[in-house]
């Protein structure tokens, strides 16, 4: 079976340094893949390169066998969603934030759809009219997830989704990711927390100085 998303030999050179060095990772439908590594190891850069938000020096990304440029990068980003670490909330209400992505392609989500997306990430409907910029870190991340899910992506690229969260909120988000994967969304999550990677199960990678390799711990088991 053809993989849903293939990132092959991705290399990002910045100031003569190979921040990402020929990293290869494959995602199938409903798969969870985690990448661990210290700060500065290049894992965030790899994620942003796969999201086509930064140029790569070499390598290839294929979604359903086609390059983002062939699909159209705008369309590609709707199918391969990227949620950064500490996501910015846009001006306006939580509901307006959730409506952003579909709004870009002229689709107006109904109130019911917005509430459903919020519920999906464990947030109550009472949050919808609140100003998004006044939310707590955990709420922001979940709104950012709902915002990304509003585009109905096939793949979620997540940069340290639990970094701003307390253990309880982290668990809620991790459970949500597992549930999303069960329903067919492929997830590629960067994390530096060992237990979170373990809890998510799935294939594990470790990134060191820009080089990505399958986690030895996992390969042994």
């Amino acid at each position, binding site marked *: 079976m053809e993989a849903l998303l293939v990132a092959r030999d991705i290399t990002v050179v910045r100031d003569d340094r190979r921040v990402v060095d020929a990293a290869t990772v494959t995602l199938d439908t409903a798969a969870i893949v985690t990448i661990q590594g210290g700060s500065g190891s290049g894992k965030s850069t790899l994620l942003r390169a796969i*999201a*086509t*938000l*930064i*140029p790569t020096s070499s390598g290839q990304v294929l979604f359903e066998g086609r390059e983002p*440029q062939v699909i159209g*990068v*705008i*369309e590609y*980003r*709707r199918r391969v*969603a*990227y*949620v*950064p670490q500490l*996501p*910015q909330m*846009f*001006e306006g209400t939580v509901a307006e934030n959730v409506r*952003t*992505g579909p709004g*870009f*392609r002229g689709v107006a989500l109904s109130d019911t759809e917005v509430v459903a997306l919020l519920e999906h990430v464990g947030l109550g409907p009472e949050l919808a009219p609140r100003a998004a910029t006044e939310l707590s870190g955990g709420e922001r991340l979940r709104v*950012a997830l709902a*915002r*990304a899910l509003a*585009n109905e992506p096939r793949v979620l690229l997540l940069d340290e989704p639990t970094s701003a969260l307390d253990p309880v909120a982290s668990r809620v988000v991790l459970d949500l990711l597992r549930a999303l994967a069960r329903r067919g969304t492929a997830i590629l999550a960067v994390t530096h927390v060992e237990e979170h990677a373990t809890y998510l199960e799935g294939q594990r990678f470790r990134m060191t100085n820009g080089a990505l390799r399958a986690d030895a711990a996992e390969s042994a088991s």
Partner: protein
Amino acid sequence: MSYVEIPLWRLGIAALLVGVAVLLSRAARLELEKDLGLGAIRAAVQLVAIGYALRLLFAAEHPVAVFAVLFVMWLVAAWTSTRRLKHGPGTRVLLPHAFVAIGLGAFVALVPVFLFVIPPRPWFEGRYVIPIGGMMLSSAMNVVAQVFERLFASARTEAATLEQYLALGATPEQALAPYRRAALRAALIPTINGLVTVGLVSLPGMMTGQILSGTEPEQAVRYQVVVMYQLVVVAAVAGVAAASFARRLIFTGDAQLRT
């Protein structure tokens, strides 16, 4: 035509006014004395020079001479509009874009007016083309500078937000739209304020000058109305063009933020 002539020694009296500002600057420790002094001298030297240049130009009445002057003004306007920007790709990259944006604005404002509203005879008559052209170029210059300044500053300070718009499937146009709107509004508001307050708060320089040199106020007013309308279209066209160039410089062809 009769008007009160200004001999040089009386010009000197007027210069004392700058002295008052210099004294105030010193008293308030604004440290602007040097800028004020140099600015006053530059203004006098530049204007005296353009005075002589205009006299030669009007005497020559040759289209090449008139358009050469206009071209230099255009170039200086473009250069000035990119010079003090704190963000963005720098003067060398921006200059050609500013040049085109200012040129587009001035072209749209000047050509129909000189064809249909104030047709000079001959069509290249410097007495009309140079001062009105200069006003348009200078207005376009300010608008372009402001649009560039604001958009490139936004691209830097709002990079994270812009990138998230892109990640959610925004086109560069869509991602930049709120910042573009704010920048264009800010650039157009002074011109609109000018429209609203003219005659109530300010009597514009050109009109005042025409009246002082003996033109019927009614005609002077009509000239001023034409110029004000021109200024509106200059600001709009140059501003929109500058915003469009800025967008292309802020994003790559693959809809990525340039770093």
